[in-house]
């Protein structure tokens, strides 16, 4: 406190401790990874250094006597509609450091959330709803390239050889989070859950730890510009390969795993020396045009002898529909579109908060465009970026997605409280840290169980919602915008989403 630069000393949270209830168990001290809680042996007191508190709630949730409350710092700047608190604090911070402000997780600014302006239709009288408890309810989803038509010989047998597919038991996958950005235990949690659920997890760009190869059949391996850990073995280890072009939290810029996070296991998996920066800049240096993307897609297909579907992941941006069309035509089997609320890693704040577009509109326009071009049925479309619950997913599929990627909600299932400190590598919940002490906080047994619970619950809710729409198979929801209505949207918004106004 004493030696801090006063200009940098505006903090967000205060740790309040009811000393009548504090039993000095020091749990809060050991659990805080940001040095906010201390034990003073001489006075037998626990006290807090509020300026270090990030509001992650680790201490308050662990306190066995519930004596801790994390509250917003009541300190306030003079009210100014233009200069909001965060503008002011960021400015001071940068004036002090000259650095680019880094933050974690997706866009948290109050942009309009279209999920909350769409409602789902239900059957009443004229067509029956279905009871999902009794009746079969199918969520199985195939991702991969589908032929335009099936060739049939004169005996009526189908002669078309189908392209390789990913088979999902529920249309939800765990989105790319690299080993390194999240630690091994989180990777293992996600991998185990994917296996148990019959879905897929995505390695992100950090390679696949050799001990997780056993989950290969449920793994999508990613190939990003840094090419970390990309070897022929890696490419063949997964069920599909994803080329990462962009990600929702930071469209157009790359990833950067700071050297201090590159510890032994990460070093081995990424195949870079311990302690060096793992830089994966925005462009693949072999992709500067769509035909270069095609070149890489086919290089990967050749490397895996056309046995794996290739996905291309892009951030949702203005021109996403045209880009998606190009990707489809470049030979990708799956297109993943990551909206600006997505992103589990670190991102420069200026980019996270101002670049990209919401998934909702991106999916609507991509689906629409691919249909206009008559190629939507040939490729799969995966929506990503900030899915919070099953109804968001139902709406995304109704807008045209085949499946969704979740990452933020997956991390939340293993404990994340959205404190947005991912970039610091000190995650108190043991997620976005490789510190061996903190990483232990995610026990993959528990992590996997919680993820399985979450996806099962969502899947059941999706079934319920399908049932009330009178649908017993997820493919009848795909692109079924007739089942959506807009509430509180302007005409151009309705038009962009291509849905009707509620009541119409």
């Amino acid at each position, binding site marked *: 406190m004493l030696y801090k630069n006063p200009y940098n000393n505006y903090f967000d949270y205060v740790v309040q401790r009811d000393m009548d*209830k504090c*039993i*000095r*168990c*020091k*749990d809060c001290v*050991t*659990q805080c990874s940001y040095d906010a809680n201390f034990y003073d042996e001489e006075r037998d007191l626990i006290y807090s250094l509020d300026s270090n508190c990030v509001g992650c709630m680790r201490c308050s949730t*662990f306190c*066995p*006597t519930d004596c801790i409350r994390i509250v917003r710092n009541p300190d306030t700047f003079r009210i100014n509609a233009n200069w909001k608190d965060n503008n002011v604090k960021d400015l001071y911070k940068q004036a002090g450091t000259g650095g680019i402000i880094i933050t974690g997780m997706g866009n948290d600014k109050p942009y309009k959330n279209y999920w909350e302006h769409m409602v789902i239709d239900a059957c009443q009288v004229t067509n029956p709803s279905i009871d999902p408890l009794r009746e079969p309810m199918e969520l199985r989803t195939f991702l991969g390239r589908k032929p335009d038509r099936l060739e049939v010989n004169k005996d009526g047998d189908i002669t078309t050889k189908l392209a390789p597919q990913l088979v999902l038991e529920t249309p939800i996958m765990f989105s790319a989070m690299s080993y390194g950005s999240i630690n091994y235990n989180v990777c293992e949690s996600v991998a185990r859950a994917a296996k148990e659920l019959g879905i897929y997890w995505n390695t992100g760009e950090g390679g696949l730890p050799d001990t997780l190869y056993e989950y290969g059949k449920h793994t999508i391996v990613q190939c990003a510009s840094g090419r970390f850990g990309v070897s022929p073995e890696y490419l063949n280890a997964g069920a599909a390969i994803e080329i990462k072009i962009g990600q929702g939290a930071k469209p157009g810029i790359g990833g950067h795993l700071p050297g201090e996070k590159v510890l032994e296991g990460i070093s081995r998996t990424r195949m870079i020396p311990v302690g060096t920066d793992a830089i994966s800049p925005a462009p693949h240096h072999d992709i500067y045009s769509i035909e270069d993307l095609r070149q890489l897609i086919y290089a990967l297909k050749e490397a895996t002898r056309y046995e794996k579907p290739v996905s291309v992941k892009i951030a949702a941006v203005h021109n996403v529909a045209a880009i998606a069309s190009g990707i489809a035509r470049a030979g990708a089997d799956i297109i993943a579109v990551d909206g600006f609320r997505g992103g589990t890693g670190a991102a420069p704040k200026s980019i996270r908060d101002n670049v990209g577009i919401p998934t909702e509109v991106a999916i609507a326009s991509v689906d629409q465009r691919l249909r206009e071009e008559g190629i939507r049925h040939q490729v799969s479309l995966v929506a990503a970026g900030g899915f919070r619950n099953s109804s968001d997913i139902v709406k995304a599929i109704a807008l045209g997605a085949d499946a969704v990627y979740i990452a933020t909600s997956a991390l939340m299932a293993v404990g994340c409280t959205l404190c947005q400190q991912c970039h610091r590598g000190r995650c108190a919940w*043991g997620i976005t840290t490789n*510190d*061996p*002490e903190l990483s*232990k*906080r995610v*026990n993959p*047994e*528990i992590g996997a169980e919680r993820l399985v619970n979450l996806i099962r619950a969502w899947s059941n809710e999706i079934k319920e919602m399908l049932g009330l729409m009178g649908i017993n198979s997820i493919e009848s929801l795909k692109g079924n915008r007739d089942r959506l209505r807009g509430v509180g949207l302007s005409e151009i918004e309705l038009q962009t989403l291509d849905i009707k106004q509620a009541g119409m």
Partner: protein
Amino acid sequence: MTEKINEDGMKIVYPREQWCIACNLCEVACMTEHSRTKDPLRAYLIEKPRPVSRTKVEYLPPVAVSVMCRHCAEAECVEACKNGTLTRDEKTGKIELDRDKCLGCWMCIMACPYGVITQVRKEEKAVANKCDLCPDREIPACVAVCPNRALVFEDRG
């Protein structure tokens, strides 16, 4: 050290240091469970004598581990005990400590290779204190409270 035999097989608490996060909740729960009031606030702040945890969280960052009685098949504490305060219940396999009998000679503390016997005040004097696997609970308190499954209640016989 005693040769390890556990002929009947029995459930005891094993630490899994890989997952121990040094949160100390096992100690808190143990103390609370073995308090008069079974309330952590009272156990820590009011009760006299203050209960003493029977498990010990060792913490040497980045590693932590909670160590408690192994209920050895041939327990060295039992072999060292002067007057039979410590005995092995042949039916349950538990190492029982009879507090009323305890002399407070600390032969058990000396002998226990795990260092898990502590001292607790009983009226005027101190007596030995050790894990009793929480007879009032189905699962020992420390295991039940552990947020990260760093303690498991298993039979590894």
